[in-house]
């Protein structure tokens, strides 16, 4: 949690001043009963009405000063809590930007989004309430006791006994009920999950005639949640009546004791009223304190979760961009005709996975070549290409670009060298031009149009109102799947990368467009990796890598693989069944 303190330190002044002014205000609150007692005891007839008006004026003045202090306190508290939450949110966002794929996989974007929004907001609320009330309530409670001691020591002993008992009861009930609140929340989550399941699965549930069972399952969770809620209610409903009884018993004892003191002449009637008023002040603050503890408890849990994310260190470090040696090495390497991309003995395991996803992969891809990657689902195709821009670090072996290990290339350079088109076509809210500039802010419109043409997307953009200024909605909702795919391909091309990676990114295109796209890309001077399930997409590649359960089952051209690689043949015949018959006939003949 101490990693959050850095952001609070900026608001050190406010964090001290807010509670301080709150306490000053509380001090005036505490003085009020004392003034009233003086009013009662200094008999109006004896002292004259003038004194009464002086006391009255004092009360009014105290109210005004109290208001002023309180406004100052609220101001500092709002400034500190919002400012702190703001810098924490920014820091968290920046921190997430530094995460590598491994951390993103492990934490999941849903978690990160919740931390950034709901959790930080809850921390803000907690800090704000805490600054305002955390010191004030105990101060009033103990302040009331201190004031009681200044009035009469014997009577004040009642306070000294009552307050610890009240605090003990309050904390005991909180201690029992707070964990129960957590269980209620998870019960509610379960009900929500089942509701969602019933809606998303409505076709399957109806097709399998499972409506009754689905309702019964929901009912079980629903009933459990209700039972839990009623139980928690039973516990937390104890707090108010119990503290009420205790404080009034204390007040009754106080009256009994005060009676003796008054009889002895040690105490005056007005002072008894003051003591009684202090007793009443305690209960009001105690109830506030209980509510505050619940809020703070929630906020602390959120703060811990936020802090947990800030504690996650990015697992990947990049070479600094200006290492001269590396640069020289690179030009030398180029001169030597090193392959554009080389994998040697690469083994890779996803963090937390039991078995490697890629095992001992080796191949060389030369400048300008087209490399096809094919294999069944889960065979490691996407994993293989995601190692080229160093989305993940290998366990063993090396991945090198132009003869340089990717681990020795700076982040910016890696980013410029490679253009990656992911499986899921994602576009951002903003104009088409903004989207195209994602990889390079300086791109000109001419470059964008060129890339769009290669990606077979020129026509799409030309037909849109405003063309490049056409506003894409969040998630690209106002574009079809095929349109989005072509635009994401163009987006990667705009960067003019030397290595282009298409990770099964033309699945929504019809066969003719897909073919035209491959033809246009082939004309560019780039090394291209095409990941696909479709044999037709990779058949013409200069080199085809066949993956099977993470191992390289074969590499070579289509013809070579057809004669040597059984896995490739299987895939081929599963897509071109009549060829198998033809070949079978041939071999028969």
């Amino acid at each position: 949690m101490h990693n959050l303190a850095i952001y609070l330190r900026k608001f050190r002044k406010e964090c001290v001043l807010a509670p301080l002014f709150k306490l000053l205000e509380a001090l005036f609150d505490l003085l009020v009963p004392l003034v009233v007692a003086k009013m009662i005891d200094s008999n109006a007839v004896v002292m004259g009405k003038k004194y009464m008006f002086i006391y009255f004026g004092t009360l009014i003045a105290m109210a005004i000063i109290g208001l002023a202090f309180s406004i100052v306190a609220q101001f500092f508290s709002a400034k500190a809590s919002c400012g702190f939450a703001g810098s924490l949110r920014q820091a968290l966002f920046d921190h997430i930007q530094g995460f590598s794929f491994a951390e993103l996989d492990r934490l999941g974007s849903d978690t990160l989004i919740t931390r950034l929004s709901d959790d930080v907001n809850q921390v803000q609320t907690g800090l704000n309430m805490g600054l305002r009330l955390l010191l004030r309530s105990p101060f009033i409670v103990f302040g009331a006791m201190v004031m009681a001691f200044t009035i009469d020591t014997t009577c004040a002993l009642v306070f000294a006994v009552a307050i610890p008992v009240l605090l003990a009861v309050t904390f005991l009930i909180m201690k029992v009920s707070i964990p129960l609140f957590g269980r209620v929340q998870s019960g509610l989550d379960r009900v929500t999950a089942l509701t969602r399941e019933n809606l998303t699965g409505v076709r399957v549930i109806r097709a399998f005639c499972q409506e009754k069972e689905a309702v019964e399952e929901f009912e079980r969770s629903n009933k459990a949640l209700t039972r839990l809620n009623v139980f928690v209610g039973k516990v937390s409903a104890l707090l108010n009546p119990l503290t009420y009884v205790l404080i009034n018993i204390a007040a009754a004892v106080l009256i009994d004791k005060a009676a003796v003191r008054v009889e002895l002449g040690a105490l005056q009637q007005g002072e008894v009223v003051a003591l009684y008023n202090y007793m009443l002040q305690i209960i009001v603050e105690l109830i506030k304190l209980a509510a505050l503890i619940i809020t703070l408890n929630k906020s602390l849990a959120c703060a811990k979760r936020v802090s947990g994310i800030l504690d996650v260190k990015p697992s990947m470090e990049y070479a600094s961009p200006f290492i001269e040696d590396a640069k020289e090495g690179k030009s030398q390497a180029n001169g030597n005709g090193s392959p554009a991309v080389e994998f040697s003995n690469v083994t890779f395991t996803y963090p937390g996975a039991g078995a490697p996803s890629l095992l001992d992969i080796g191949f060389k891809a030369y400048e300008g070549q087209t490399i096809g990657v094919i294999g069944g689902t889960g065979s490691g195709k996407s994993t293989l290409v995601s190692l080229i821009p160093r989305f993940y670090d290998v366990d063993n072996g090396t991945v090198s670009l132009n003869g340089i290990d990717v681990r020795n290339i700076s982040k910016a350079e890696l980013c410029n060298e490679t253009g990656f088109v992911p499986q899921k076509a994602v576009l951002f809210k903003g104009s088409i031009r903004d989207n195209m500039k994602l990889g390079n802010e300086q791109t000109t419109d001419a470059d964008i149009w060129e890339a769009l043409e290669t990606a077979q997307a020129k026509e799409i953009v030309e037909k849109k109102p405003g063309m490049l200024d056409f506003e894409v909605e969040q998630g690209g909702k106002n574009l079809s799947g095929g349109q989005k795919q072509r635009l994401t391909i163009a987006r990667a091309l705009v960067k003019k990368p030397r290595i282009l990676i298409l990770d099964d990114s033309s699945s929504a295109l019809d066969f003719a467009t897909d073919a035209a796209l491959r033809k246009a890309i082939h004309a560019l001077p780039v090394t291209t990796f095409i990941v696909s399930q479709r044999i037709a997409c990779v058949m013409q590649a200069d080199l085809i890598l066949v993956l099977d359960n993470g191992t390289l089952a074969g590499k070579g051209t289509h013809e070579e693989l057809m004669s040597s690689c059984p896995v490739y043949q299987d895939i081929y015949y599963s897509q071109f069944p009549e060829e198998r018959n033809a070949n079978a006939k041939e071999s028969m003949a």
Partner: protein
Amino acid sequence: MKNVKTKQEASTASALRKLSPFIGRYWVGLAASIVLAGAMVVLQLYVPILFGDAIDLMVGEGRVSFDGIASYTGRIIMLVCISAICTYFMNLINNRIAFGIVREIRSKAIEHVQRVPLSYLDSHSTGDIVSRITTDTDVLSDGLLLGFTQLFSGIITVIVTLFFMFSKNVTVSLLVVVLTPLSFVVARFISSRSFNLFKKQSEIRGRQTGFIDEIVGNQKVVKAFGYEDRASSRFRKINDELVDCSQQAIFYSSLTNPSTRFVNSLVYACVALVGILLVPGGGLTVGGLSVLLAYANQYMKPFNDISSVVTEMQNALACASRLFSFLEEKEESPEAPLVFGSVKGAVDIKDVSFRYEKDRPLIEGLNVHAEPGMKIAIVGPTGCGKTTIINLLMRFYDVDNGTISIDGTPITDITRHSLRRSYGMVLQDTWLKGDTVRENIRFGKPDASDEEIIEAAKASHCWEFIQRLPNGLDTILSDDGISQGQKQLLCIARVMLCHPPMLILDEATSSIDTRTEILIQQAFDTLMKGRTSFIVAHRLSTIRNASLILVMKDGHIMEQGTHDELLSRGGFYEKLYNSQFQQV
């Protein structure tokens, strides 16, 4: 503006009316709660008077009546205990009522989900309906709870306080009654200021959440394009705006409490002054003054409570009306009486037309006849109505015109269950329960033995990967635990276990690699020998051996025939089929 408001009020009123049968069932508890609340309030307000009377018995040195005081404190303790017990039981009863009502409404809602037409569910976002059933009911329960607990007691408190105050002293009481509305004016003034700021805050927060969703939700794309720094600086801009706005909003709104407290302090001071001036003339005793001071402090609280309860209740009723608008959605047409015995599998689609939207024709005059045991494939470009035919066959939607019959009986004459039981269905959308693999496979046949489950898993080629899961059949499935292809295999196993008389496959193997797909295909062919099946496919290689291929475009059947017939015809199918072999 005014119009909107009255409409809102009307819907709130009608929500309350619709809620009343749910509440009415608890009338005994409700009556008990009101009685307990009354007792609690009267006692709680009476206790300060007893304290005041006791204080009056200690006038000064040597003039204290100990007996009187002891009897007062004894009564106080007894009354306080009774009041506390009343409070506790009132809370228990209210809890039970509020949570009971919500539980009932939720059950009703989930039963309703099973019965509303799919057209409703398809045209409304899942998130919206989920939030109606969960979040809205939650707000409703909070509102009801608060309403029951604080509304009655608040009103009773005001009345009883006024009564007790006036019985002590009329002048001072009038003073309190006249001055307290001041704090309302102050509070109203502040809240109208802060309302606009909060509105602005939630607008900025909405924008920020959208940005976070977009960037963090697609963090990998951001990384791949080196967009991190620019994303950070864009975030900074929105974030600074938000901090600015929240600071103001929170500051302004937090002025409410100190300001109303200030007004209260003024009232308190006035009461003290006037009261003290009345004491010497015998208009008021010191004990009486202490009572009035206590009341002056407390008098505001029920007003604040009531106004917050009213807001909360309005909120709750708004949620209730959203909930009821879902609950009142018309259910599917009533069930027909007939139940199928055994199904042979002759399916007849006759002159069927159907459209999702009235002004957009989709399927017009569709005729298909399937003999028992036929394998019917439906192909065509996206949006041509392939999936719609499946919606109609399963009666997820009813046809507008024409009839669909099985073995000569129109499907509208038989119960939905009996119709749906005669089909096994695998959709492209792989829905699985958040439950164990075992429960998912035996979803359609809950009493299936492990042997049957394993057999089905083997037939659908998923037994191998199930064995590799951490807990085998007992592994609980989560959304990202297994791949899309593996999910499809489980959906296929689920159907294999049921041995349905007819089969519907809608792009059922789209995420499975082509080699496994062929094996699955063979398994289906064995399973469905002599049974009718309908197959929607994107990959044409998988349907070459179909007995009848329907080529659809724009809701019509363009061509039909076997694979070889269609190829030799050289039409749309031939073009579609050969385009997949096109080379660069």
